[in-house]
C-alpha cells in the first residue's frame, strides 16, 4: 500500500550555516499516529516546516499521498493540516471568521455545518463570535487546531501540542487525536517528552541533531529503551547475591548497601522479587525508582549506532 507520507533523503541547511536536517528518510503509514521525539533544536519543527512548505529544503524529496511537496504542492498541501508550535493567531478576528478563512484558503467550499461540528468538538462553539484576543492561551490553541481541521486534512501535524497546555485541553486533544485516527487521519506529532510519545503514538521516530536515529514500533522501543530501575536501600551490607535471587536482573552496588533491579514496564515482576527478597531474609529501609530519561535513551542510542 502506498504510504501517506514518504520522505527521501531530506536535508536542510539554514542560511546561517546551521544544519537542521540531515538525509531524513521516513515512510508514514495511513492513519497511524507517529511521534517524532527529540530534544530542543533536534530539527522537529524544521522537518514539519519543510513538509508544509514553510521552509525550503536544501535537498531531498517528499511526497504526500504520492504528490511531490514542491512540484505538486497544491495537491500535497491541501491534504495537510498544521498546528504549529508557536501560538500565533489574528487578534481582531472572531473565532468563526478565522476558521472559515482557513477553509477558504485551502480551496474548500463553505461548510458551516462542518465548522460548527469542529468548534463544538473543541469546546469553542459558545465563543465563536468572540474576538480571538479575548481568549485564553488554551482557547487560542484550540482555535489553531480548529483552523487546521477546517479543511479536512488527511495528515495532521501537531508540533509540540502539549507544551504549556492545561490538563483539560491535553485530555480533549488526545480524545480528538484518537477520534481523528479512527476516521482515517494520519497524525504526526512532535514532543520532547518520552511519556507523551509513549501515551499516544503507534510508532516513534527519534531525532537528534537533525538525524533520524531510529524509527520503531512504540512497544518495541519502550521495551528496548524504556527501562526502569528499582533501587533498594538495604539495612545490612550484602556481599554476594543469594542463589534464590539469581533469576532476577539484580546488581549489587559497590558498597553493598544497595540492590538495583532493572526491568521494563511491560514485565515488571516487582511483586515476585519482593517475595523472593523476603524469603531470602533481605530487608531494606527505603526504595526508589528511576526511569530512563530521554537523555539516557540518546546516550544508549548513540552508543548503539556506530
Amino acid at each position, binding site marked *: 500500500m502506498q504510504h501517506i507520507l514518504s520522505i527521501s533523503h531530506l536535508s536542510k541547511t539554514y542560511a546561517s550555516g546551521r544544519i537542521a536536517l540531515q538525509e531524513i528518510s521516513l515512510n508514514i503509514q495511513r492513519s497511524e499516529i507517529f511521534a517524532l521525539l527529540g530534544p530542543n533544536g533536534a530539527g522537529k519543527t524544521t522537518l514539519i516546516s519543510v513538509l508544509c512548505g*514553510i521552509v525550503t529544503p536544501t535537498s531531498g524529496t517528499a511526497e504526500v499521498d504520492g504528490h511531490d511537496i514542491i512540484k505538486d504542492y497544491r495537491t500535497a498541501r491541501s491534504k495537510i493540516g498544521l498546528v504549529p508550535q508557536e501560538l500565533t493567531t489574528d487578534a481582531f478576528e472572531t473565532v468563526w471568521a478565522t476558521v472559515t478563512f482557513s477553509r477558504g*484558503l485551502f480551496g474548500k467550499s463553505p461548510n458551516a455545518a462542518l465548522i460548527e461540528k469542529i468548534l463544538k468538538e473543541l469546546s469553542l462553539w459558545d465563543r465563536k463570535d468572540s474576538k480571538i484576543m479575548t481568549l485564553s492561551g488554551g482557547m487560542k490553541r484550540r482555535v489553531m487546531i480548529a483552523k487546521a481541521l477546517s479543511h479536512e486534512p488527511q495528515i495532521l501535524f501537531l508540533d509540540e501540542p502539549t507544551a504549556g497546555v492545561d490538563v483539560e485541553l491535553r485530555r480533549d486533544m488526545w480524545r480528538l487525536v484518537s477520534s481523528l485516527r479512527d476516521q482515517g487521519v494520519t497524525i504526526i506529532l512532535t514532543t520532547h517528552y518520552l511519556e507523551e510519545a509513549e501515551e499516544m503514538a503507534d510508532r516513534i521516530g527519534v531525532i537528534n541533531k537533525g538525524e533520524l536515529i531510529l524509527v520503531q514500533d512504540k512497544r518495541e522501543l519502550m521495551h528496548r529503551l524504556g527501562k526502569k530501575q528499582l533501587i533498594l536501600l538495604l539495612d545490612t551490607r550484602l556481599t554476594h547475591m543469594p542463589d534464590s535471587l539469581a533469576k532476577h536482573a539484580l546488581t549489587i552496588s559497590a558498597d553493598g548497601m544497595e540492590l538495583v533491579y532493572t526491568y521494563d514496564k511491560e514485565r515488571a515482576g516487582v511483586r515476585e522479587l519482593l517475595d523472593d527478597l523476603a524469603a531470602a531474609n533481605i530487608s531494606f529501609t527505603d526504595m526508589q525508582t528511576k526511569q530512563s530519561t530521554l537523555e539516557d535513551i540518546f546516550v544508549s542510542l548513540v552508543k548503539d549506532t556506530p
Partner: protein
Amino acid sequence: MNIRAIQAIYIFEMARTGRTLLQSIVSPVLSTSLYFIVFGAAIGSHMTQIGGVSYGAFIVPGLIMLALLTQSISNASFGIFFPRFTGTIYELLSAPVSPPELVAGYVGAAATKSIILGLITLATARLFVDFRIDHPLWMLFFLLLTAVTFSLFGFVIGIWADNFEKLQLIPLLVVTPLTFLGGSFYSIDMLPPFWRAVTLVNPVVYLISGFRWSFFGASDVNIAISLGMTLFFLSACLAIVSWVFKTGYRLKA
C-alpha cells in the same frame, strides 16, 4: 486556480478595512478639506488659471493621486507585513495557494480600499470646487491602474520591511516627496528648465499628468507617455514581486 483562497484573503482584508473604516475615511476627507482651505482658497485666490482651469480645480487630480498613492502603499504594505509580524503567515505559506493568488488577494483588497478613498476624496473636493471630468472612463482606468501599481509597490515594502519603522520609512521618505514634487499643486511647465528636467525622472509626474488629462483634456506630458510610464512601473513591481516569491525572500527560510 484556487479562487476560494483569493476570495478568502480578499474578504479577510476587506473586513480589516471595515473595522478601521471610520479612521480610513476621516483622514482623506480631513486632509482634502485642509488642502482646499490652504491651497484652494487662501493661495488659489492669488493664482491665475493654469491652462484654462481654475487653481482649485487644477489641484483636484493631484490630491486624489496623493490619497491614492499613500493609501495603496500603506494598505498593501501593512496587509502582508502584519501576518509576518504576528507569525500567522505560516498559514498562507502552508496553504495550496500560488504566489499570484496570494498577491491577487492582498493587492486586490488594498487597491479596492484606496480606490474607495480616492473616490471619497473626489467627492469631498466637489464640495469645495466645481470641476469637470472630460474622460470619466479614462479617469477610472488611471485610478485603477495607479491603485494596483502602488498596492503592488506597498506589498513589496511589506515584505521587505522587518520592523514598523521601515514600514513607514519608504512612504515617508520617498513617496510623499515624490508626490509633492510630482506636480500635484503646480504644472511642471511653471518650473525652470533644469528642475523641469529633474522632475521628469519622477514617476509620479506621469501618473498625475495622465490623471489630470482625464479631467481636463490637457496635460504636462503626452498622455501616451504617461500611460506607458505607469505600465512600466506596474511591470517593474510585478517583476520584483515574482522575484520575491521565486527566491522566498524574507518569506521562507
